């Protein structure tokens, strides 16, 4: 049967949200075009996790539960997917645009001699696949179509597409581990001591820029972030000054983020920064320079000194919690 194949990423036995978003996008396309949705879940994961894949829209769930897939290997993962792709010729393959999704989609593209329509913020099908994807770090939006004769490999920007509630049939089929000695295999997963939320996955981000003046001042952002369950982000100026690590950087040479709420503190809003966060749903700017370009991008601007305002916002949120 004509179908869309989705890659479902698993980390430490948990399916990733970006993959469920991909399954739901596939569900929408499949329902509109009379296709089914197949999902390939690679790595150990329990029945509760497979239920999430079903609930997001998968009709068939190919599950390779072998412990050898617990850590990522591009060639081993690609072999598992290539087996499915060659056996059943999907209309398209969808993946989340995560670190793994980016690597795996590119590896598959190299093997299948196709290209990745990557970081899509919109996917359409009308005879062929068409995606809208940012280029120049979001300074332009490109509409890109997949030429006839090429398998569409599409990665979806996380946090843009909702996980839907139209379940699929959810039939689970075991998928055999390919017999292959991988050339590239992740040797280990290093986790930070404190479980920080990554800016690329966060629903709320509190970000600091040059006006933070030094690494110690990020404490007030961390307090606000803790109150909001948010990740802490930073502009390039703050990262290049060595105040916070590059994994926190948002912008053209950092991460592209699409949280529900982005709070920019003391960030002037250079074009490279705006490129990385302008797809956030609600943007708040706290800045004392009323000419700062960040205010042009903001839904709510607070004109004033961040060192006075940020702690007050934290306090107002605490008061709100007390009131219930």
């Amino acid at each position, binding site marked *: 049967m004509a179908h869309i194949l989705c890659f479902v990423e698993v*980390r430490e036995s948990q399916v990733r949200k970006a993959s469920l978003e991909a399954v739901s996008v596939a569900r929408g396309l499949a329902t509109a075009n009379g296709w089914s949705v197949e999902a390939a879940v690679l790595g150990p994961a329990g029945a509760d996790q497979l239920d999430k894949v079903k609930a997001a829209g998968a009709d068939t769930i190919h599950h390779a539960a072998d412990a050898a897939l617990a850590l*990522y290997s591009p060639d081993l993962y*690609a072999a598992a997917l290539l087996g499915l792709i060659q056996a059943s010729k999907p209309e398209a393959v969808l993946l989340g645009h995560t*670190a793994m999704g*980016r*690597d795996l989609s590119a*590896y598959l*593209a*190299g093997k299948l*001699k*196709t*290209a*990745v329509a*990557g*970081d899509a913020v919109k996917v359409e099908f009308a005879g062929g696949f068409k995606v809208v*994807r*940012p*280029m*120049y*770090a979001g300074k*332009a*939006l*490109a*509409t890109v*179509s*997949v*030429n006839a004769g*090429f398998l569409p490999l599409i990665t979806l920007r996380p946090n843009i597409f909702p996980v839907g509630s139209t379940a699929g049939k959810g039939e689970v089929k075991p998928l055999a581990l390919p017999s292959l000695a991988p*050339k*590239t295999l992740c*040797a*280990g*997963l290093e*986790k*930070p001591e404190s479980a920080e939320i*990554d800016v690329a*996955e966060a629903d709320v981000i509190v970000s600091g820029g040059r006006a933070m003046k030094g690494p110690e001042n990020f404490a007030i952002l961390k307090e606000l972030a803790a109150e*909001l369950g948010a990740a802490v982000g930073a502009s390039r100026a703050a990262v290049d000054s060595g105040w916070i690590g*590059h*994994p926190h950087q948002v912008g*053209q*040479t950092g991460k592209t983020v699409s949280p529900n*709420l982005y709070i920019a503190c003391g960030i002037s809003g250079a*074009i490279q920064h705006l490129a990385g966060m*302008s797809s956030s749903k*609600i943007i708040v700017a706290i800045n004392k320079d*009323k000419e700062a370009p960040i*205010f042009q*991008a903001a*839904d*709510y601007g*607070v*004109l*004033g000194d961040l060192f006075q*305002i940020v702690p*007050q*916002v934290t306090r*107002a*949120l605490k008061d*709100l919690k007390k009131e219930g």
Partner: protein
Amino acid sequence: MKIAVCIVQVPATDARIVIRPDARGVETKEVKFVISPYDEYAIEAALQLKEQAGGEVVLITAGPDRALQALREGLALGADRAVHITLTDEYHDALEVATLLAAALGKEAPDLALFGKLGVGFDHGATGVMVAAMLDRPHISMAAKLEMEGTTLKGRREIEGAAETYAIALPAVVTTEKGLNSPRIANLKGIMAAKKKPVETFAAADLGAAAPALTLEGLQPPPKKAAGKLISDEDPAKAARELVRLLREEAKVI
């Protein structure tokens, strides 16, 4: 050790992007072009490895005539020679570019091929890994740490909220992430020497060009945002409370 670094010339990250009237590309006049920032980490990694272990650093680019300038800049930093695969100054998908680079790398047969993790501009972020797949080489993408231990290449890549470690055998492909190193700046001596270093030129057709898998239908500017609300209460506590109220009652995000 022979190291190839595949680079791409892109508009500077602070360049204003103006879409062409035909919407199939961006204006290139009056735009400052630079080596893609992530490629700078790849070049620096190559130069450091050469300094440690000896060998040769070859730069390769697939791009229009103006991309020669990027090669000269890379040669000025200390690379030994360069290969320029000429392409038109239009959109090329990662399949076209990766096919050409894989062909050039096939001829060069380096121990290590380095790429930036993403060429800022087209933002594919796929080319290096595609080449690894085409050449059937092990790879580490988005490496934020890299070291040679004997003939094993150890690397670390940051993923969402964690990091993966890898140890792969040469010959291999690596794409580089910011934070890997601090790229050097060319000095006058390097710039003078770069003018005499050899640059070999190939037409795309000479290497066996691939048909594109993607068509760029058009570019449009990102949607303009409606003007936001400005809170300018002199009392920080009042301003903060008003912001929290708006986020809760109007935006409904907290």
